[in-house]
């Protein structure tokens, strides 16, 4: 195991049962991601980007091969261990933000910290810091319905970053945003990547995102066809 690599996949295969047979979503993926990378998995719809992110995020397990995240093999983790890995080290950003609508901005960002049993004062400080990173300190009492799409995605970033995770997985984070908001979001994530040394892995086919990536992995039919540093 190379200590600088926080994600390693070896011969990663993922099949999904379809009818009487199988659909192969990932077909022998060998990749490594190091600490502080700002990388993206790109490719057309159905190429296997989200499946790869799900396995790296310990939300799914490989059919064959290995996916080792922070020295833990995803396929061998129990549900509890996988939840613990996500709770402590991983952050997720979704295309549709997925904020909890009944909670305020502050509470949405606070939610991951509640699972870490932090004290009230530590939680408050961490949440305010995270909201400052994304420039939303003035919206702490707002509900998601009162925010624009860009603001919602910034809250989602704050929620993913508040526990200072080692790895953030962002699945099409700009798909619902206009160009200005997309750039704002990406600049924010780029800054957090530099300041906190957090690894970001995107799944995207958005050119606006691709421009910001330091490393671009192209998938096609479940296979890596290109892995380039940009």
């Amino acid at each position, binding site marked *: 195991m190379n200590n600088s690599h926080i994600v390693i996949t070896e011969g990663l295969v993922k099949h999904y049962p379809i009818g009487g047979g199988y659909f192969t979503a990932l077909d022998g993926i060998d990749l490594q991601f190091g600490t502080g990378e700002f990388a993206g998995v790109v490719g057309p719809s159905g190429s296997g980007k989200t499946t790869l992110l799900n396995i790296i995020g310990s939300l799914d397990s490989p059919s064959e091969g290995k996916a080792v995240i922070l020295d833990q093999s995803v396929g061998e983790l129990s549900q509890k261990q996988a*939840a613990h890995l*996500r*709770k402590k080290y991983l952050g997720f950003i979704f295309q549709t933000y997925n904020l909890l609508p*009944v909670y305020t901005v502050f509470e949405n960002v606070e939610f991951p910290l509640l699972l870490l049993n932090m004290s009230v004062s530590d939680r408050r400080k961490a949440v305010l810091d995270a909201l400052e990173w994304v420039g939303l300190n003035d919206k702490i009492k707002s509900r998601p319905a009162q925010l624009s799409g860009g603001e919602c995605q910034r809250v989602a970033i704050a929620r993913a970053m508040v526990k200072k995770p080692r790895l953030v997985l962002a699945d099409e984070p700009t798909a619902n945003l206009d160009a200005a908001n997309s750039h704002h979001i990406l600049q924010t994530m780029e800054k957090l990547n530099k300041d906190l040394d957090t690894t970001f892995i995107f799944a995207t086919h958005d050119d606006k995102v691709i421009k910001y990536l330091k490393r671009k992995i192209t998938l096609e039919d479940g296979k890596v066809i290109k892995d380039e540093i940009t």
Partner: protein
Amino acid sequence: MIRFLFKGLLRDRQRSLLPSIVVAAGVMLTVFLVCYLTGIMGGFADFTSKFSSGHVKIMTRAYADNMNQKPIDLALTDVSEIIEKVRQDHPDMDWVLRTQFGGLLDVPDENGETRSQGPSMAIAIDMLTPGSKEPGRLTLDNILVKGSIPDSPGEILISDEFATKLEVVPGDAVTLMGSTMYGSMSFYNFTISGTIRFGVSVMDRGAIIVDFSDAQAALDMQDASGEILGYLPSGNYNGEEAGVVCASFNSKYTDPEDEFSPVMLKLSEQDEFLGGYLEMIDAVALIVVFVFILAMSIVLWNTGLIGGLRRYGEVGVRLAVGEGKGHIYKSMIYESAMIGIIGSALGTIIGLLFAYWVQEKGIDISSIMKGATMMMPGKFHAKIVPEAYYLGFIPGLFSTTLGTMLSGIGIYKRKTAQLFKELET
């Protein structure tokens, strides 16, 4: 964490207020139905026991064989001795003398000629002994329409409808023509002290209430009575309890060789039809309550199920931030149980209030019972029973929680990534 989840529950009305209202409504209906059906069941037995059967009845064996004809020639004799014995054997029960008999009620004009007359059914009860429970048992004060309750010998109450038919008013004199216990003709003059409305068509057509001592005098029944009625200490009919009293009495005093020996029958044994009818009502009520609770359970189970399913999105987010499946599942069940408890408590309180109102006021069915020949109460009252305090929790708490538990199983059955797909859609 619990505070955080509770805050969300309170703020999301679709998760808290709406399910609570649905649960409360279902539970309220269940509680009310249980009380109302119990009231109807008890109403039949209660009404019959008060007016004619008692919870148990002592008669001669010969009288019991022809009970429908009320044959006073087969009445019990030496009743003071019998009643003394049963009062000793069952001091906590209330024992009363009753005689029912038929006769022709004649209304004379100022010359003593018949002005009007009609067949009547008389119920003789103890109205004049100070402290007698009989006027209260028959709620004479409540059913009095005109005049007053008899307070001296020779006074009677007559049904208001019958009085209108005979064109008599309180204060008028009437003559009851019948036959004595020994078969000779009997003519006895009474003064109408008041008119009453029984609320039972068959009685309102021609019933009168006379004092027991007057009936004894008119029918030549010294120390005799058609029947001795016994009422259980609780005031409510209980077939099992009544059966024990009957068995004890019959083993002691009934002589199978002597048709004039006393025999005691409980309410449901006195009339094959009534017994069967009560059993049927009992069974039907149980089935209705069971089916209703089952139906409400399915409705509320679905409420829990849908409530759980619509939260798969939220489940996805919570899984993403690292909450365990078991923790999410447990929190959903706690939430559902909390809603079930609140809804059930609320529904039970409203259902009981509604039942209390119907218990006090009753639902008047006399207009649809006008032609009835069967003795039935004109009003059905609900009855609040101890079961009503907890039966609503079966659909309210258990079904709602079960629904959530079943929908929550999906969290385990589905792969986490699948929940995310549902989250994204």
